């Protein structure tokens, strides 16, 4: 009888090797984040010695480095880091949940709604701080449920959900543009932040709410991660394995919208970071193990690297969103072409 329990032979099956690969990828991504973070702190218009950066960070002023490091570069690097993590994590959560890489929050209008709501709250309602983020979260959730409703979306995301989302996204982008035109006191840089996303002039007080959101909503996602992974096998299989599909989707939607909305209300909708992180991480990992942390780190790398190259490597000084947008658009085209061929999932 083939079922008879005759094992004892050591298991040579690949689980361990897959884990080793994902551990390696996570280490490399983490190393990349640390490197880029340090690079942002040390190099700018002029480079500082690492020792000067460290002593400035720990409060010893050495030759004026303190202002540059503590007031300019550290908030900027911190903002890039936390928004990158939020966008990467929120994006991949949507893509995995809806089993479609095109269903990322910045394609289906969640980022656009958070951005429009934030601009509305700041310009029209004269709000600031946490309240703006909460308004953005509410708008994001409203749009998420509207899209689900309009595409009668339970389960995976078909073309319909994506198209509804793109339509809503375009509508909300025009709302943002209109409000910006009505806000004459804003300069071009501030306006660009809400159109493409920027970490220019970030303050630590603006970083704090995003960091808090990362802890709270990231924690929610970490708890839901196992169930989310099983949900990829389809609703029926997930239920058979003891996972409530609707409940998991609700938790994941709430957490992902929270992450994206808080990040958007601090840095603006940094173009395509949410969309790019998941697929890039998936290709690096080669399997679905540890996709959430890998995508979060990838998001941080994209924002840190995009901001650094936008500032210092390219001929003109560009906000990070312009750089990530330029990288992301061709990839979007690639995915659309590929999705038409095999219906691709993440």
């Amino acid at each position: 009888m083939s079922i008879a329990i005759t094992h004892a032979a050591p298991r040579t099956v690949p689980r361990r090797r897959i884990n080793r690969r994902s551990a390696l990828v996570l280490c490399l991504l983490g190393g990349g984040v640390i490197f880029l973070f340090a690079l942002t702190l040390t190099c700018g218009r002029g480079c500082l010695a690492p020792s000067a950066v460290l002593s400035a960070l720990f409060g010893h002023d050495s030759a004026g480095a303190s202002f540059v490091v503590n007031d300019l570069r550290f908030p900027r690097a911190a903002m890039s880091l936390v928004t990158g993590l939020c966008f990467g994590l929120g994006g991949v959560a949507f893509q995995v949940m809806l089993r479609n890489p095109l269903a990322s929050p910045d394609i289906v209008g969640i980022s656009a709604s958070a951005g429009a709501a934030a601009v509305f709250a700041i310009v029209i309602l004269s709000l600031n701080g946490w309240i703006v983020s909460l308004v953005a979260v509410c708008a994001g959730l409203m749009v998420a449920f509207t899209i689900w409703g309009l595409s009668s979306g339970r389960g995976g995301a078909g073309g319909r959900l994506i198209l509804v989302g793109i339509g809503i996204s375009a509508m909300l982008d025009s709302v943002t543009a209109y409000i910006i035109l009505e806000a004459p006191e804003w300069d071009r840089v501030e306006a660009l932040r809400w159109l493409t996303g920027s970490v220019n002039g970030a303050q630590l007080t603006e970083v704090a709410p995003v960091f808090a959101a990362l802890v709270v909503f990231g924690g929610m996602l970490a708890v839901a991660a196992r169930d989310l992974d099983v949900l990829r096998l389809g609703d029926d299989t997930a239920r058979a394995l003891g996972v409530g599909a609707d409940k998991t989707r609700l938790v994941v939607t709430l957490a992902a919208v929270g992450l994206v909305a808080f990040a958007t209300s601090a840095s603006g909708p940094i173009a395509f970071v949410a969309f790019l992180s998941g697929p890039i991480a998936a290709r690096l990992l080669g399997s679905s193990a540890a996709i959430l942390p890998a995508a979060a780190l990838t998001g941080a790398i994209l924002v840190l690297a995009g901001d650094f190259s936008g500032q210092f490597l390219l001929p003109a000084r560009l906000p990070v969103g312009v750089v990530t947008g330029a990288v992301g658009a061709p990839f979007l085209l690639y995915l659309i072409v590929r999705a038409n061929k095999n219906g691709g999932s993440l």
Partner: protein
Amino acid sequence: MSLDHRLEAQNLCAGYEKQAILENVSLTLPAGKITAIVGGNASGKSTLLRTLTRILPTVSGSVLLDGQSVHTMPSRKLAQIMGLLPQSPIAPEGITVADLVGRGRHPHHSLFTRWGSADDRAVDQALRATGIEKLAEREIDTLSGGQRQRAWIAMALAQETDLLLLDEPTTFLDVSHQIEVLDLLVDMNTGRGTTIAMVLHDLNLAARYADHLIAVADRGIYAEGPPSEILTESMVKAVFGLESRIITDPVSGTPSMVPLGRHKVISRPCSRKIA
């Protein structure tokens, strides 16, 4: 090994509020046996299976596992006792066989438990039982239909449930793979005492492999019992609307249905000639 869990439906109505697909169905799956659910297209056999496993809600009536309603049972506890292989499960792109089979261990873990040697052992056994241990590292997308179906069954096996329900496990498989899958289910049934219930299209394979046959027609159960009593010419006529002759399967000794169409029939049975 099995604790003989008892799954039963009482006055079950299922489907949709406005259009019932099943009305007043009561049944008990015989513990430790293989049950096959047969019936025509859209007769409600899949609905029955899906309602029994809580994937579809009941309109009225109840589904009881060991006397407790499955709808009030914690999902994870239910999933430790009863497994289901749906008709068209989705394999995420790039997932390997071992990884997929490992998903079957999900209900045995909580947030705070880690993958352990018991899980390794369950996956290992499932791979070996289904004969796909050599394919463990392959990606699901690269497998043939039969291999893929065996991987899904291995996942359900790794779940180590005492009850396993399968929705058309042999669809899209050629005949040799169909036999392979059904033999595998008998292995599970006799080896571990797993109670099995499945929707099958092929009446003759159902009669050969099942201990208990449930024929579904007209929103209810037309007949149920051992295949030798259930698979009759009048049952086939009533459930499928088809004239047939029942012969004895020379290989298994179980009843076997030979359809009578309008053409290609050399000798009609006497009883039909008169009519």
